[in-house]
């Protein structure tokens, strides 16, 4: 088979995976160029965005703490991040002698690349108000304003956030030193725990939208039917808390608790490798804000005042998208500036004993409401019965926990008494 034939037949495969109307027809040079253009715009866009985010976070925290913050490099210190990056590039790149060199070098990439890739599924603009469904026309081709819209879209986000765990985990192990290892074990446990809550709260959104594709989720929210109130706020709150923990940002930044662990998993990293971890951290913050907006706040949806020209299709939706995202960026910064760090057992308790059961219960009640709507039952009665059932189940669980705890305490005190008797030779 000739090369040209081979290139021709890539199209259907791309269509099968991409799910974008752009790729469904014939794949010619324009289509390839459009895809490359999208890649370039998204890559440069989030890179610049992240640089500004680092500056913004430092500046806002400075304001909150009555300091000035970065103000030397460029106007308002805007170029501070670039200056820091340049400095880090020219620093000596230390690799600990006992480290596993290959994995040590690999880990920062495993942290950074998923953060970039997640952005591929975020719808950035496009008019979702009418029947357009977020499609725009570039050079005569219909397409979405997102790099890819796979059928399994939002699962891609979950996959990437679980791949990102590898970066942290392997960085800690490959450093060949105690504190990084402890930090990475902590981080991994935390990220795995909160991924469950993240997925369960996300499932309620999928239940309402009836699709996994991000474009479909945004489309399902058009006309102010935003998932934040359609799912009843609780999944949104759970998602934000779990996302903060997943990002290892304060108040969940036990991963790099300076007082306990030096710098956590990145203790041994220096120079550009450290810069990559730093970049990944902020990139993940931006990405997570974008995902929250997509899932719960209708993505780029918003009033377009009936405009269907380039203002109504590109500018206004992107402005809405950015404005919503900006709120969450501010929220994450405010978390960092105002909240004290959790203790480790508190983090685990919150994740496993509060968020996961709550998200699961909420999901079941919403599923019940859906069934009630299908069957024509009274929705309120279903919600009441569901809540009663869940509370009864939760009560039983609490009872079991309490009784086993009492038993354990009794056993502990008996054991303590025995050892005390042994020490004193039988004399109380």
């Amino acid at each position: 088979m000739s090369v040209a034939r081979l290139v021709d037949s890539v199209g259907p495969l791309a269509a099968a995976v991409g799910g974008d109307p752009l790729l469904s027809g014939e794949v010619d040079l324009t289509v390839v160029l459009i895809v490359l253009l999208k890649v370039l715009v998204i890559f440069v866009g989030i890179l610049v965005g992240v640089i500004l985010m680092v500056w913004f976070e430092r500046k806002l925290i400075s304001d909150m703490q009555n300091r000035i913050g970065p103000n030397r490099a460029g106007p308002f210190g805007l170029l501070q991040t670039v200056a820091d990056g340049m400095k880090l590039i020219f620093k000596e790149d230390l690799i600990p002698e006992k480290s596993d060199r290959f994995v040590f070098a690999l880990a920062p990439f495993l942290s950074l690349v998923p953060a970039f890739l997640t952005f591929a599924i975020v719808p950035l603009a496009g008019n979702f108000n009418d029947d357009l469904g977020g499609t725009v026309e570039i050079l005569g081709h219909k397409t979405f304003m997102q790099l890819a819209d796979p059928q399994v879209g939002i699962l891609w986000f979950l996959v990437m956030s679980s791949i990102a765990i590898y970066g942290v985990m392997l960085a800690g192990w490959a450093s060949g030193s105690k504190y990084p290892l402890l930090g990475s074990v902590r981080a991994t446990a935390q990220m795995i725990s909160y991924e469950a809550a993240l997925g369960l709260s996300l499932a309620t959104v999928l239940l309402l939208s009836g699709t996994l594709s991000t474009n479909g989720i945004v489309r399902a929210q058009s006309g102010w039917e935003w998932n934040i109130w359609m799912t009843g706020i609780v999944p949104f709150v759970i998602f934000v808390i779990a996302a903060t923990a997943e990002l290892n940002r304060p108040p969940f930044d036990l991963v790099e608790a300076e007082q306990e662990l030096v710098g956590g998993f990145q203790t041994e990293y220096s120079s550009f490798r450290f810069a990559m971890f730093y970049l990944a951290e902020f990139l993940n913050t931006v990405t997570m804000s974008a995902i929250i907006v997509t899932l719960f706040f209708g993505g780029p949806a918003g009033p377009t005042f009936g405009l269907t020209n380039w203002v109504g299709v590109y500018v206004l939706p992107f402005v809405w998208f950015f404005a919503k995202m900006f709120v969450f960026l501010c929220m994450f910064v405010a978390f960092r500036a105002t909240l004290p760090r959790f203790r480790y057992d508190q983090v685990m308790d919150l994740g496993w004993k509060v968020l996961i059961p709550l998200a699961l219960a909420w999901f079941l009640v919403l599923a019940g409401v859906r069934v009630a709507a299908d069957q024509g039952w009274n929705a309120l009665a279903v919600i009441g019965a569901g809540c009663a059932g869940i509370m009864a189940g939760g009560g039983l669980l609490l009872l079991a926990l309490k009784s086993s705890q009492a038993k354990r305490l009794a056993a502990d005190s008996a054991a303590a008494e025995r050892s005390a008797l042994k020490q004193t030779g039988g004399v109380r």
Partner: protein
Amino acid sequence: MNLLAALGAGLQATGGDGPTPIMAQPEITFSAPAQVIFAVTAVVMIYGAFRVVTTKNVVHAALWLMIVLGGVGINYVVLQAEFVAVTQFLVYLGAILVLFLFGIMLTRASMGVSEELDNNLKPVGAVAGLGLLAIIAYALIETFGNDKLTFQAYQGVAGPNSNGRTQAVADTLFSQYLIPFEVLSVLLLVALIGAIVLARKD
């Protein structure tokens, strides 16, 4: 997961005598790129699988396993079973392998080469491995024989609400295969309880 995998393969396998309701229109195919991708991933996966058992570093073994499992996921993508592919990534790479690594780090987290990973049971292992290969090969040849996969674009992808294949997996899973699915979940629960019983002293 094997159920899912079988399901994905079953949904996508065409040709032969099997029912082919999903892929009706034959004109668009992507056999060539699919075969190229399969050839590359197959070679990488075989080398990776070989390194999993030969490397002397337990974390490196886990990383090689990551490549093997990722290759399986890529093959699912080529078969247009993205849901199965993503589940493969999510479950194997995102959960199981992370837990492997987590276990390694909680216990010894040994750096460098550890000699005790090897033992003198290599002949037995080789016999067992070859036996397994023979069984699987026989089962595959017996089942699929001369069937040919034709890689045709799934019609309906272009539509706006195109979650057809994911829906098909869900429909089959929760109707036809409901009982195996539930039995599997009970099996997982048993494993969970067993682990707790083993781990807890009181």
